[in-house]
């Protein structure tokens, strides 16, 4: 029983979305999931991630199609607004389901 349960858990862990599983990116995605859109400063203030790190995490999420980056000028100053794409929302929901099932299986054991 223990061996089979371990194998099931290992499969579940392997199926977790590695991009979203990183804590900083998970915080960003969770924040964007519950709002329509937010600017860079808002994400920085809410997640506590430094500007440089947040920027690189957002670039990774954008390159994978999870996040839309909109740049515009607001009163002559550049302003970056970010939102989750439909694919990003779907991936986050799938990630949560996988995590939930994995934890449920562990509890059942």
């Amino acid at each position, binding site marked *: 029983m223990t061996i089979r349960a371990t194998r099931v858990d290992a499969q579940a862990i392997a199926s977790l979305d590695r991009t979203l599983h990183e804590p900083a990116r998970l915080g960003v995605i969770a924040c964007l999931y519950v709002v329509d859109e937010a*600017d860079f400063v808002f994400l920085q203030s*809410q997640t506590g991630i430094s500007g440089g790190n947040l920027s690189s995490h957002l670039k990774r999420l954008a390159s994978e199609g999870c996040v839309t980056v909109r740049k515009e000028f607001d009163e002559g*100053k550049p302003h970056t607004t970010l939102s989750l794409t439909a694919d990003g929302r779907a991936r986050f929901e799938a990630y949560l389901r996988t995590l939930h099932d994995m934890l449920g299986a562990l509890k059942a054991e």
Partner: protein
Amino acid sequence: MGARSELAATEARVFQAYWQDGVLDLLAGGSTLLIGLGWLAGFVLASVVVPPLAIVSWPILRQRITHPRLGRVRFNAHRRFRMRHGMIAVLSLGVLLFGFFALHFGVGHLPPFPRWLAPGIPALLLAALALSAAEALRLARFALYGIGFIAAALVVSGLDADPGWALAGGGAIAAANGARMLVAFLRDFPMLAAEMDK
């Protein structure tokens, strides 16, 4: 706790964070304090002059103080719907109560209220507004301000004092708390340079 309720709690936390700057408390409380002092000084027109100034100042202060530190966010449709309807309800209640108040004072009698309560009525109207705002924005501290206004209304009614004292007292509580929150906000949230804006 399931993922849905965790996310709902996250959304609620994000929404609460949006109001932690204390600017709204400071402006609303400061305005009420000024109106109360105006009434005490015989300048009743303060109740007409001060609120529009506060309403105009709020977005400017948010833009100058809050946005560079907290950023900007567009909440989800459900939250925006609740906020919009909540604020419409608060404003409608304010207009209704003001009309009711003006009508009864205008004709010189107050049938629904005991006469001894008359000096506390302006503060009771503000208490109703504060309690409605607490419900609309889900901010418990506004319910406390409402309770403060009710207490102030009862004190001035009991002492048969000038209604301005209740407004000044209730407003001072909200303004002092707003100032305390603003100081904490400025201390805890430095100006952030948006790396991606560069």
